[in-house]
């Protein structure tokens, strides 16, 4: 609303007031045109001004549901480039935090794996392999003791060291 609108009805009733109003409008126009708004804005301490505003009070008045109803999330997501975001996610680190054992035990994933694996033959082979690995380790420990080696032998060839699974 233009603040001068309030003066106009009074001006119509009295010619002196009308002249006074015109003079005032002219003075205000001259004043505003002479005013450097940027200079004025630079002098205002916005931080102090914001500090005096109770944002919590404002937020309490905002109906977030209405606000969210007006937001088109699909359009918003369509503008998001997910690739750089995903590039920053360390998937290996993420997966290392997953307890796969518990996942297999508690979900149908276990049944899927059980049905897809080779059955009794695969079980028997796994058992034989794990037994021989255990015997390998047992014999190796005793040989190391008998030879009284101070420095442990390399566990794997150099090219396989970074990729090997932890013992």
């Amino acid at each position: 609303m233009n603040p001068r609108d309030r003066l106009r009805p009074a001006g119509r009733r009295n010619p002196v007031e009308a002249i006074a109003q015109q003079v005032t409008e002219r003075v205000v126009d001259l004043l505003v045109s002479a005013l450097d708004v940027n200079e004025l804005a630079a002098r205002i301490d916005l931080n102090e001004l914001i500090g005096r505003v109770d944002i919590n009070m404002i937020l309490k008045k905002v109906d977030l549901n209405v606000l969210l109803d007006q937001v088109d999330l699909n359009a918003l997501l369509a503008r998001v480039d997910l690739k750089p975001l995903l590039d920053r996610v360390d998937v290996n680190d993420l997966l290392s935090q997953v307890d796969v054992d518990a996942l297999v035990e508690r979900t149908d994933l276990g049944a899927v794996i059980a049905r897809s694996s080779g059955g009794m033959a695969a079980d028997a082979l796994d058992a034989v392999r794990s037994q021989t690995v255990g015997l390998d380790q047992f014999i190796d420990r005793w040989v190391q003791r008998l030879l009284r080696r101070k420095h442990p032998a390399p566990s794997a060839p150099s090219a396989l060291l970074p990729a090997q699974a932890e013992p």
Partner: protein
Amino acid sequence: MTGQPPPVSYQGHYAGSVSRFTAFAIDLTVSSAVFALALAAISYGVHVVTGNNVSWNRSNIVVAVIFVLWEFVYFGYSWAVSGRTFGMAALGIRVVAADGSVLEPRRGVVRALVFPLSFLLFGLGFLGILVQREHRALHDLIAGSAVIYSWDARAARLRFLARQAELAPPP
């Protein structure tokens, strides 16, 4: 299947003596059986065609030479093509280059050719599997190869857990 889960993965580690010896024993059994079957098939073929019975004597020099050549082919071809024989595949081990990279076919053939050297002097060449720091036998040192576990025990453990979960009564 035992009640204990398999050990965690040693994939990529140098394979030990028991795994290697067991794999070799399986290979020797399989290759000998295949050789015997081949001789029997040839005998049968000769009998069908000519009507004569042919018997093979293992002490015959020709048979012995063919057997040795067959063993070279069995081991050499397996190592050159895939880095593992049937027995090694069963035990989950494989031959790689000394640095852990894929074994070149040439090295696989060399390994098969120098393999008998490890039998000399009462099998002293095999002692390296026990005492050498990288578990490399004489033929490994000559051919520039090493034997590692290629078996994914982690996957086996998942199979084991899956089987246990399926067998467990529903809550």
